[in-house]
């Protein structure tokens, strides 16, 4: 059914604009909404229609929401009077070049069940407010797609961004294809293609993207997407990263495969793997991943240490609780043991696998010459962390010594890791790995980890859920330098709320709320508010 035989409510005088097709394009500035609009106008004129386009240019083009509006009607030789802007409830075709723009169109009433064909790209261009959150500030896209299916006469929701990127083109071409594939305009496909050809630039790529959009909208392709999961999905391993669009969810890579390496270490590994197999089934996958991370971070012995800690979580846990505590312990112990230090960064940045990922991300092959510059800014604090514990403590005890050291190390360092000199510098730092356990940072981290874990175990005895929430608070500690210090401080403040919560029925819920609040903003305003609420109990 095309929109023009959609039921209209006959109520005396008819709306006389039935012969006018009304089409609006909502896009993010820079997405090429203007190109698409020009194509649509050209297409309509080729088909013997009179058409008019308007837009609201100006600063909105600078990455903000923009709107283009087109009206068209068969040319009868007499000038029609078109409107210059879309009206709620009066739009036949709504093209949204991004999912939240589709949401915005619906909120403005431009998508109605009696007539609107909605063509929306399901990919996300995250708004700044979503990206700046210290935790995960991305909005849940599912309600928008649900509403789209309800609000539109017909909803075509496809990831047209990746369709275009895969064709080596941009989204205006795949949107144009989806418009053609939807059949919402009474024009032959060849007219669309003629329009693209006449525009003259990047024609072949545009036509490929057009086809992908066309097939997707006509139901032939594979671009139909579920909320959150672009079906043309690009996992973390399938770069290049698409332009603007970022997948919200990536499939978890399989962690079940045994590692490769020297026989002696493999033998040790197998012992640890056997201990994993002895764990309760629901936690095995997480423990497997955690173990791999810890061993990769340090060595097999460190892995054994991890499993020893995990065993303490297992004893006292039970299937009645779904082994939740142990599962969370498997996750957060691994993260805690793999604290972020200079050695780890140097190790990760000097690996062959990193080089391969970099080339994939930059879209160049193995032969290309790529100059790689790393941005480091170590301070005295990080430097003493990599000193033997005793020396580091001695340094730390004196503000003068620290200031002296800071003057020497605290500056931005740019290392060219594609050059021998730069690479070797990082390589040497990463070579400290075997001595890591004797360094100051390790001596500082271990008691902290034990305190936290012991606390969780203790509280678990009285309030199982509270113990679980304490484990999850580890999420707050992340980053380097100031970021790390800020995370640590938030962690302390959240757990500092424990004294006020202990014994309450809803202690676990409140601890969770505190943690969520801590992840909302950088300065911890939301956390302070939540703490004040608790203090008022």
């Amino acid at each position: 059914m095309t929109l023009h035989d959609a039921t209209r409510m006959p109520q005396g005088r008819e709306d006389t604009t039935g012969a006018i097709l009304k089409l609006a394009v909502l896009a993010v500035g820079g997405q090429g909404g203007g190109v698409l609009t020009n194509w649509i106008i050209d297409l309509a004129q080729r088909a013997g229609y009179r058409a008019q386009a308007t837009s609201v240019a100006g600063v909105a083009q600078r990455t903000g929401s923009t709107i283009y509006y087109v009206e068209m009607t068969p040319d009868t030789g007499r000038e029609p009077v078109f409107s210059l802007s879309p009206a709620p409830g009066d739009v036949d075709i709504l093209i949204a070049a991004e999912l939240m723009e589709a949401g915005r169109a619906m909120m403005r009433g431009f998508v109605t069940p009696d007539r609107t064909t909605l063509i929306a790209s399901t990919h996300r261009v995250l708004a700044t407010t979503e990206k700046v959150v210290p935790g995960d500030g991305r909005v849940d896209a599912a309600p928008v797609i649900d509403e789209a299916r309800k609000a539109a006469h017909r909803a075509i929701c496809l990831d047209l961004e990746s369709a275009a990127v895969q064709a080596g083109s941009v989204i205006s071409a795949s949107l144009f294809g989806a418009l053609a594939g939807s059949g919402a305009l009474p024009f032959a496909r060849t007219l669309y293609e003629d329009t693209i050809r006449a525009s003259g630039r990047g024609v072949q790529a545009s036509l490929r993207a057009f086809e992908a959009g066309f097939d997707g909208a006509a139901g032939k392709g594979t671009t139909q997407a579920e909320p959150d999961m672009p079906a043309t999905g690009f996992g973390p391993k399938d770069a290049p990263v698409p332009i603007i669009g970022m997948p919200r969810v990536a499939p978890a890579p399989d962690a079940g495969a045994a590692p490769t390496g020297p026989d002696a270490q493999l033998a040790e590994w197998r012992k640890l793997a056997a201990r994993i197999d002895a764990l309760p089934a629901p936690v095995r996958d997480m423990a497997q991943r955690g173990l791999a991370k810890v061993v990769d971070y340090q060595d097999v012995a460190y892995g054994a240490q991890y499993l020893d800690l995990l065993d303490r979580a297992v004893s006292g846990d039970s299937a009645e609780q779904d082994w939740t505590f142990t599962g969370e312990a498997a996750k957060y112990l691994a993260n805690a043991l793999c604290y972020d230090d200079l050695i780890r960064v140097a190790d990760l940045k000097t690996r062959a696998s990193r080089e391969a990922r970099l080339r994939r991300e930059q879209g160049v092959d193995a032969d290309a010459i790529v100059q790689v510059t790393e941005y480091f800014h170590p301070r005295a604090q990080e430097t003493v962390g990599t000193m033997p514990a005793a020396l580091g403590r001695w340094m730390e005890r004196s503000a003068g010594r620290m200031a002296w050291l800071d003057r020497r190390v605290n500056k931005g360092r740019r290392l060219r890791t594609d050059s021998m000199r730069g690479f070797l510098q990082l390589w040497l730092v990463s070579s400290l790995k075997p001595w890591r356990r004797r360094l100051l940072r390790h001596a500082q981290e271990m008691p902290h980890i034990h305190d936290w874990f012991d606390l969780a175990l203790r509280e678990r005895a009285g309030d199982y859920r509270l113990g679980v929430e304490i484990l999850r608070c580890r999420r707050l500690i992340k980053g380097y330098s100031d970021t790390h210090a800020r995370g640590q401080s938030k962690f302390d403040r959240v757990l500092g709320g424990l004294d006020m919560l202990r014994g309450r029925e809803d202690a676990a819920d409140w601890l969770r709320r505190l943690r969520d609040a801590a992840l909302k903003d950088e300065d911890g305003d939301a956390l302070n508010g939540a703490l004040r609420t608790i203090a008022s109990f």
Partner: protein
Amino acid sequence: MAERSFAREVQQLRVGDGTLFRGEGILAITKALLENGVGYVGGYQGAPISHLMDVLADAQEILGELGVHFEASASEATAAASLAASVHYPIRGAVTFKSTVGTNVASDALANLASGGVTGGALVIVGEDYGEGSSIMQERSHAFAMKSQIWLLDPRPNLPSIVKAVGDGFALSEASNTPVMLQVRIRCCHVTGEFTARDNVAPRMSVRDALENPTRDVDRIVLPPASFKHEHEKVKKRWPAAVTYITENRLNEYFGPEKAPVGLVIQGGMYNGVIRALQRLGLADIHGETEVPIYCLNVVYPLIDDEFLTFCKGKDAVLVVEEGQPNYLEQAFGAMLYKAGGTTKLLGKGPLPKAGEYTGQVMLDGLRTFLSDHAPDLLPPSGRASNAPPAAPVPALADVVPPRPPSFCTGCPERPIFAATKLVEQELGHHHIASDIGCHLFSINAPFDLGATTMGYGLGPASASALNDKGAKRRSISFLGDGGFWHNGLTSSIGNALFNENDNVIVIVDNYYSAATGGQDVLSSRADNPTKSTRHPIADAVRGMGVKWVRQIDRTYDVGRVQATLKEALTTPETGPKVIVASSECMLNRQRREKPLVAKAVNEGARVLKTRFGVDEDVCTGDHACIRLSGCPSLSVKSLGDPLRDDPVAAIDQSCVGCGNCGEVADAAVLCPSFYQADVVNNPTPRDRRRHRRARRVIDWLQTRRDARRLRFAHL
């Protein structure tokens, strides 16, 4: 050179009699100027008429052939003042700017122009930046027309009407010795359409003729006693002349039947919206044939009493469709009706809202209310409520859909300036920050959240001038763009600060263009402009004025340097204004300029580095501190699919232009080492290859050796 080139489109400006001209509203206006023998054009860029300036600039060759002078005016005041060429000389002149802000700036010159009156037609084309897409305070240009007695045209928003209005405007101006404003709204400027062209006409008198044959007439100069005479002349001579011209030439239009119980009196610019509402009510057909009479004011000032009163005759009620407030038209019509003893009921604001754009729904609701109250027979019984399908409930997505205000582009050189400012504030505490007009005003929004007021173009530092206390422990920071600086900031802001011994800090954001309006050149632009004089450094101008403490930063991406300079400015004991000129080219324009050059160089086999940034996803911990100091569109977040990780990590997509902000910020703010910069060497030299091979051999050996000694996991 402007962001958008009209080099191809302007070729259409040459077409002659009978040719069908297709294009946007602004292109049509340009063509109409040429068809009407304009002698000089000028103006100042700003949405929605920025493109009109761009078209004129790109059309300079054609203008030159006809002997038409084009002036890229320094400000709207300059543009308006340039119309003085039409005071004594019978030359037609046209200027254009954004309104009401531009008209505010121009009003001094406009008032003087209107007082003495004009001999040659003087046309002021104002882009009415009102309603959706507007970036300024919501006001009407109408008041300026009334206060200075400048006639105001508000043509129907289609190309033939706009084109006709240009000709009418010149003729009306000459017939009544009064300047004329032609108002075009945002969508009208960008509307596409077609009209039948006429031949271009060379000006009757060129500016050269005027220069070589100077004349003066004391009666036209605004100085007593002439200025007193002007006021009388305005109402005794010019006004009646205008009324006669408008009436005789039928500039206003009538649509629909002569007899009907009700009628609509509308601004020309509202015509399409009104017709659409009538169409939806079933009262007009697709071509605009209406059953409700319409008196369409293509001239909204002056109003023609006789036309209005005749239109009202026999009607029970008329509705004035007048967008914005105050409702000058409605008030004037009310007075006319009252004085004439009219009994027709006058409505306007009431059925229609007092404020805000008359969008489709607003117009539909307003007309329906008016008609059901005053002409219910026109509406079908059910239609008195509604004949549209019941409105679907608007989805409740308010909590989901994030706001998306305009922001800095990918690679914008202004981003690092505000990143540095945020870092300085983290160290020294919050300061009073005064913003100005330009792209840099985006600092108001996330992630920077910097800036307290914006008072007008070039007035950033001026707006902080009262906050001037030598005893204060903290200084104010004012921002000012290069556009605003040359527009009037040099005197109103810098000169004022210097003269008043202001100790505060002024940051001039110099991106080589008037960037927010589309990348037009200004005095300090670094580009070679064949017809304008560029390359006049801002710092020289500031020093020339007498400012002692001036720092020039030639690469804004050096966040550490901007940070240190700003900190020094805020803490130095030196007195007087501290001026920092932070210069780097607008990335939008730079990319447009460099991309073809780079592509060409690569094709020709030259060694070219292509820079982009990336994030090591296993090093990034997902705190997003980097994004809070950036907000770059190409810097986003993504999930890794690792069940061990809760928060998405930072990621840079292919739209990255390698500006360097990410790395600099990570360095200056001491963030994390997860950013890397990748410079892909296109067409490497033999030396590149040798060095690469040597390094590769060592690196490969080390990596293989280490990999052989550790456990390797496929998924890590």
